[in-house]
């Protein structure tokens, strides 16, 4: 079968015919796993990521009529997921009566005991160093370093300029290097 573009799939979903379900399943097959890993790197725990990814797709489905193809579908999808994940972190911060940095610090401490984390020593050090970064630098670093996204796509997702992103990524890399070096010297 000929592989349909995102635009063609979206058109089929909007028609709300019997083919809509197949078309939406096609979008899920294409992006669901990548989206999950994107959100997982922000939220760290599997359970929270599962909730946020499901909410993201429900929102995408409900708002698909509003998608104007001004940007790529996947940048629109990632923008919704990123906002959902950040809102989730903010909500957790309020319910736990602590601040976001404290919450991320707790996450980094529980990383090794998480049953769905099996990173080796250097991967664990890297994840802990990433969790120490400010929110925007953390997002940029994950998208650039792990997902190898183009700066322009990251700029569309985070609604910022390419120049600002390059600076954020540069700062993030420096801070991670410093954190890991400091830890190696400590031990």
């Amino acid at each position, binding site marked *: 079968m000929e592989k349909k573009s995102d635009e063609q799939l979206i058109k089929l*979903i909007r028609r709300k015919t019997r083919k*809509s*379900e197949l078309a*939406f*399943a096609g979008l*899920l*097959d294409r992006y*669901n*796993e990548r989206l*999950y*890993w994107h959100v*997982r*790197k922000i939220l*760290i725990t*599997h359970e929270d990521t*599962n909730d946020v*990814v*499901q909410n993201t*797709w*429900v929102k995408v*489905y409900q708002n698909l009529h509003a998608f104007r193809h001004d940007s790529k579908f996947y940048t629109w999808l990632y923008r919704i997921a990123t906002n959902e994940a950040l809102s989730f972190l903010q909500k957790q911060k309020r319910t736990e009566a602590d601040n976001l940095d404290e919450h991320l610090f707790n996450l980094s401490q529980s990383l090794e005991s998480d049953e*769905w*984390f*099996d*990173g*080796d020593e*250097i*991967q*664990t050090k*890297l*994840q802990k160093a990433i969790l120490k970064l400010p929110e925007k630098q953390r997002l940029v670093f994950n998208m650039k*370093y*792990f997902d190898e996204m183009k700066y322009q796509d990251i700029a569309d997702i985070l609604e910022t300029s390419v120049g600002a992103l390059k600076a954020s990524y540069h700062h993030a890399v420096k801070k991670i290097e410093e954190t890991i070096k400091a830890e190696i010297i400590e031990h």
Partner: protein
Amino acid sequence: MTNKKVHKTELKAQPFRVPNQYFDELKNDILEKTVSKKPKVIALNKVWFRAAAAVVLLISVGGGWLYMYQQQTSETELLAAGVEAELYSYDMQMLKYYSEEGQESELTNEDDAYLIQTGYANEEVLYGND
């Protein structure tokens, strides 16, 4: 492959895991919440729904009864006013007749007392000057 490249590949590898068959289950969950979502049916056997239905029924029946009662009351009041007006008119006609003809009133003492009490007539009209 150089040591640096091996190191970089290791670092970029995903350190997180998911349960087996997780992505298939996730896909099904999402499809159920979106395109496959069936219209919500409210179960009639739920206690709160029964209570709400009973309240709505009571309000409907009570409201209907109140409306009909008010309608009936206003009709009765109208009818009573009409009868009273007719009686008054009759009394006046009779008084005029008796006074013109100089005949004695056939009204009973009770009727007289009522006419005097209500101000429709006085003793002079009823019994004359003598």
